[in-house]
């Protein structure tokens, strides 16, 4: 519009939103994490109507909107459906330094996949269709990192 805008010092304000959260895990996932933490077991749950098995367990079936009270113990093995080797660094987010591998693992005994880390293999050797198994953390706290990662089945 006029000159003053060109003369004004351009200020960039460095701000934050820094608010910690305490999330409620809820009935379905408390049971899942309880089993994972205390009994070192990975469970799924099954729809009474369409028999689909979900892992991580779901609150309701996608298709049928039915409660899923029928729990199924899973062997913790599966097949890599897709993966990516991450090469960029994001220290505030990433659980480790790049390069590392994320995968979607189609779990044996379930109809869905789990997203997790794939390790104990050179990143470039990960392949779609590779058979993998869950490696649990020694110290488990009741969250997704109780599964340390998936590794190839020897």
């Amino acid at each position, binding site marked *: 519009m006029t000159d*003053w805008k060109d003369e004004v010092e351009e200020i960039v304000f460095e701000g934050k*939103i820094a608010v910690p959260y305490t999330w409620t895990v809820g009935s379905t996932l408390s049971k899942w994490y309880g089993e994972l933490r205390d009994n070192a077991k990975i469970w799924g749950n099954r729809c009474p109507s369409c028999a689909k098995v979900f892992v991580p367990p779901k609150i309701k079936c996608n298709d049928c909107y039915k409660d899923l009270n029928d729990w199924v113990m899973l062997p913790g093995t599966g097949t890599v459906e897709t993966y990516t080797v991450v090469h960029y660094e994001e220290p505030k987010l990433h659980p480790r330094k790049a390069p590392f591998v994320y995968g979607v693992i189609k779990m044996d005994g379930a109809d869905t996949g789990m997203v997790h880390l794939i390790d104990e293999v050179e990143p470039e050797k990960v392949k779609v269709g590779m058979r993998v198994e869950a490696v649990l953390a020694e110290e488990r706290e009741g969250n997704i990192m109780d599964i340390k990662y998936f590794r190839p089945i020897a």
Partner: protein
Amino acid sequence: MGIYKDKRKITHTPDGYELMTLESGPVEYDFNWHLGAYWSKFLAEMRDNKRFVGVKCPACDRVFIPPREVCGRCYTAMDEWVEVGEEGELQGFTVVRFPYIDPNTGGLMQVPYTGIWVTLDGADTRMMHFCDEHDESKLDVGMRLRAVWEDEPRPTSIHAVRYFEVI
């Protein structure tokens, strides 16, 4: 309606699992907000010249603090700068005694603090700031206040004014 189970008090699932919570730990999202010409000038004038400047609407003549480009009511762009006083009238206040998390840091806010709404002399809108008086019985709407400037170097923020004091 009475058929639904009230689960407000329970601590375990029906099959005995402990209901958990999950702590995020410190979470921080960083922003670099450009302040644009109006807010930049406002803060720079406070920092460098210890004065408040607002903008005047060419249609309704109201003087806005903090300044901004548009008069919402007239939907007109504003371009005329007006200096307003460093004294003004107390229009509202809250003495905050209950600590809460400061979203700027993730730590606790320092309490007590008094958040105020002050209409600076010559302005038609109120500015939000602090008052050093934390006893609400000593504050009343309509009281005169004066800005107490921070020592140099003053920050490029509203904290260029330390607080307002009762005259």
